[in-house]
């Protein structure tokens, strides 16, 4: 408490009082170690504030300011910042006594109800989603308290003679000696320089590579890519200008390549270790594949397909935050092999990307057949394009499954183990193989072939998302996230409905 008293007197003697104390923008690039990684404070504070409140800002305060102001409560400085948790689960709202349109509750109040929440969680028998909602809220309350006592904010300090960095919480870092020494140099604000010293310590020992993540987080490349892809699609569909569309497509492709590359630089591994990254890579991969196929086959329709699917993936990345988290986390031990990770998962993702192209295309053709006009000639041409796409998709899928088998054999001593993810990838392969065989021998005619291809993509979605969100067992379920089951259910429902609606051709 001595330091608290000292800080209080120091603050009163400076002009910091009015201006958010020392919680300034300069803190954004400060390194912090949390959840097994070193990252800029900007990234950590944004993740924390997002996790606690569901928003990226607190009123007009940035996440860093809010995080800092909350943390310095631990130093004994009373700040009047209040954070409210976002509560959406109906049963949880009822339990907390919230009105129907009231979706927030202050953390200070939630703290007093922690025990009753714990008790409630224990008595829930079957309602899994309610239990998850409570346990998430309890985690948020714990994190809030951890931040508020200054224990969450870890700062780097040199340890003794060994050139090692040790990480200590804010309350232990900000010692009286340091602040008093600094006071003689910068009497106006002795705190910020002391805290920023931590960055110098870290950079002098470990380098400043971690700063890349700050630029990455600030650049918002996913949003830019989404915007550019929309413009490209619009110039293609609305303005019918192919060259401009191609230009924007290439621009979006470059933006996404930079985005993926930055993630590789930050994490030091292949960018395919959680759902967010697989969606990103499949979208990027399919766009690239579409451009290549379009170029070599001299078929513009591939650009439509590529942009259409790319739009879907970018929308998911931008808006489906509950399901896909952009957070970069350390990897579980089994996956720590960059060679196999990049070859196996990338091949699978590219194949999913190619199959997704066929899905966009098939649905587009069904739509056109039902609501516009699709003559026989064009139907056959689309059938050919679909067949080409499926060939690439299935070849890559087979290769990807085999690479996975070889990896499993190499690291666990078994080629195949009926793990749900590998079984589902084989199911997808079998389904597409049956379709290709039927198509090759003319057993499945073009009109049916289009509808079947559109429906078959549901198996890809099941293998890709369903195994993690619905089955959620087995070796591959590392990327488990919430809310995916609803997304997947809606997808299946929409796709099936669409197939039923377009079952009959347009009556002429």
């Amino acid at each position, binding site marked *: 408490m001595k330091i608290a008293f000292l800080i209080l007197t120091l603050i009163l003697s400076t002009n910091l009082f009015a201006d958010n104390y020392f919680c300034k923008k300069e803190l954004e690039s400060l390194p912090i170690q949390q959840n097994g990684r070193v990252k800029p404070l900007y990234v950590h504070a944004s993740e924390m504030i997002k996790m606690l409140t569901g928003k990226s800002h607190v009123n007009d305060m940035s996440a860093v300011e809010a995080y800092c102001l909350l943390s310095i409560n631990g130093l004994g400085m009373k700040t009047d910042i209040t954070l409210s948790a976002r509560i959406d689960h109906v049963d949880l709202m009822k339990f907390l006594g919230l009105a129907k349109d009231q979706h927030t509750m202050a953390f200070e109040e939630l703290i007093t109800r922690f025990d009753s929440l714990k008790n409630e969680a224990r008595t829930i028998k079957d309602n899994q989603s309610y239990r998850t909602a409570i346990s998430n809220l309890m985690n948020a309350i714990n994190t809030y308290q951890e931040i508020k006592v200054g224990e969450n904010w870890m700062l780097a300090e040199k340890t003794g003679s060994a050139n090692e960095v040790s990480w200590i919480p804010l309350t232990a870092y900000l010692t009286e000696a340091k602040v008093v020494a600094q006071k003689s140099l910068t009497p106006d604000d002795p705190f910020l320089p002391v805290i920023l010293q931590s960055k110098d310590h870290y950079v002098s020992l470990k380098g400043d590579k971690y700063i890349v993540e700050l630029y990455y987080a600030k650049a918002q490349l996913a949003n830019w890519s989404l915007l550019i892809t929309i413009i490209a699609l619009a110039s293609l569909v609305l303005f019918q200008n192919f060259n401009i569309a191609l230009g924007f497509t290439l621009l979006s492709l470059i933006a996404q390549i930079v985005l993926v590359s930055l993630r590789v630089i930050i994490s030091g591994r292949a960018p395919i270790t959680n759902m967010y990254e697989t969606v990103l890579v499949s979208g990027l991969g399919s766009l690239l594949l579409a451009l290549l196929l379009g170029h070599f086959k001299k078929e513009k329709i591939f650009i439509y397909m590529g942009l259409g699917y790319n739009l879907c993936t970018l929308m998911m990345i931008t808006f489906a935050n509950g399901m896909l988290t952009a957070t970069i986390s*350390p990897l579980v031990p089994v996956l720590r092999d960059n060679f196999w990770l990049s070859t196996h998962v990338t091949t699978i993702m590219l194949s999913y990307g190619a199959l997704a192209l066929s899905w966009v295309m098939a649905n587009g053709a069904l739509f056109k057949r039902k609501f516009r006009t699709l003559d026989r000639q064009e139907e056959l041409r689309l059938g050919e394009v679909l067949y080409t796409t499926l060939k690439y998709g299935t070849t890559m899928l087979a290769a990807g499954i085999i690479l996975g088998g070889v990896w499993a054999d190499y690291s666990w001593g*078994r080629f195949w183990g*009926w793990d*749900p993810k590998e079984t589902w990838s084989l199911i997808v392969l079998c389904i597409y193989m049956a379709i290709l065989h*039927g198509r090759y021998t003319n057993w499945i005619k073009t009109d049916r072939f289009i509808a079947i291809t559109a429906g078959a993509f549901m198996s890809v979605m099941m293998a890709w998302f369903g195994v993690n969100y619905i089955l959620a*067992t087995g070796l591959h379920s590392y990327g488990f996230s919430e809310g995916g089951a609803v997304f997947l259910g809606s997808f299946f429902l929409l796709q099936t409905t669409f197939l039923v609606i377009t079952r009959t051709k347009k009556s002429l």
Partner: protein
Amino acid sequence: MKNKINWNEIERTIGGLKFAVVVIVLFTICMIVGTFFESYFGTDFANRTIYKAPFFMLLQFGMFLSIIFAAFLRLPPKKRLYGFYTIHSGLVIIGIGSLITYVAGIDGHLTLPPNEMARKVVLSKDIFKITYPNEGKQVSTFLPYSFTETQMGQTYNNITIKRFIPFAEAKLTWIDSTFYKPSKNDPVQSSQYHYKNSFAEQDITLSLHPEANGDFPSTSSMGPLTFIYLPAKLAECFKRIGASKVIFLNSKTAECFTPEDRNIAAKLTATKKRFFPVSYNGSILTFFPDLSPLPMNQNAQASLNSELKTMSLASFEQKPTLFLFGKKASFYSKSEQKWQHEEFASINNSINLPWMGAEIKLIAHETNKLPFNMPAPTIPIQKNGSLIKGDLRAVELNISGKTFWVTNFNGLSLNIEGHNILLEVTKETLNLPFEVALTKFKMDKDPGTNMPASYESFVNLFQGSGSTNHHIFMNNPLKVQGYTLYQSSYQQNDNGSYNSTLTVNVDQGRPLKYLGSLMLVLGSIWHFNLNKKKKGISA
């Protein structure tokens, strides 16, 4: 001519597209069901019902035939189909490789405790094992790879295996004792209670029956609370507890008395320790209730075989302790500063306890029968990656007209006609031709967290020629004498050290599987590239 088999017709059918599609579709449906089974009922159940079931093997064989015949039908070779031949041969080769692995391969686990020689690999098949420790003899038999209970009727000497239940659930039943014949006043009672407070609730079954196994102890604890189960007769002495807070009990007859009952006054030693001289069967026993439940002789040594014992209740006043006597209960209430005595009026009646709104309900009480967890067939249920129901594998035995159960959790040790025997339900094991000792286990964690980032075993390998040091970690296995040892898992011991688990594997089909895979991928590329030149398929 009628009966002549038309081989060409059969070849055309099996090699035909319709057969292929039907088999692929059936295979796919089975796999879909399998993944859901695995998710709900666990890996073992999915393996036994689908992935390793005979019908699924048959389907795979059907695919195999379809692939071969489809290729045969398209002979003699045509240049256009070279890719197609390569793909189909690749698949056939993968199939043969897998069959070899299935028949001759070994896949098991080797657990390495720190600094101990290990060579026993645990494989996956269930076995029933009979050990005669005195004769140094061991016999075992494979248990069926089924998913429902199987009647067996296999006999060895006087032991008959009646049935095997691969997925069982223990159901509490009350049974008569097998060997022990209780006399009329024998305190062999057992009771089942349900304890509940605002944080937790639990069923507790306590027993004094000598045949009751470890699932049903006479003392049990739950958090800070201890349950002590005592013969019914003792309840009266607890009621009469006097200022000394001491009780004497006869462990044979379950009779009891307090010092006050017999006007035995406490005396003090020179070091101010209190003691009670009690006359019993014509001799005087000296008890120090605060030190030991047993009487002390002159040399201050406890007589271990004394029937008469003592108990000082003063020590149970600090820590929450509930004494249960079947239908009665005694406990010390700190708020009222006195011992309280309650009675369950009937089955399903509750008693309120003075610890944070706790209460206890009597569910069942038996004076002669004993509780037994009877295995009953069930469908297993998996939650968060482990079985929450049905993880019991049980074998029902008939030995000299009596019924016994052996499970993977509880073996059985018997003395039959002068022979000690040990009965177990366990896994098949294999002794390696070499020995491995774990010299060091290294685990790195993600910085600032408790999440393992990697785990590695440093081992000493002992073969005929001497010993060598090796380092096994994820993606870096050890190959020795045809066996491959992979780092797969670890467990922490009570003393904080780690056991390392290695996967031990022999796979003779490996080269074929790799060759087939390569042919499959190259064949696909070849096929589709050639196909590209053949312009347009007419609809």
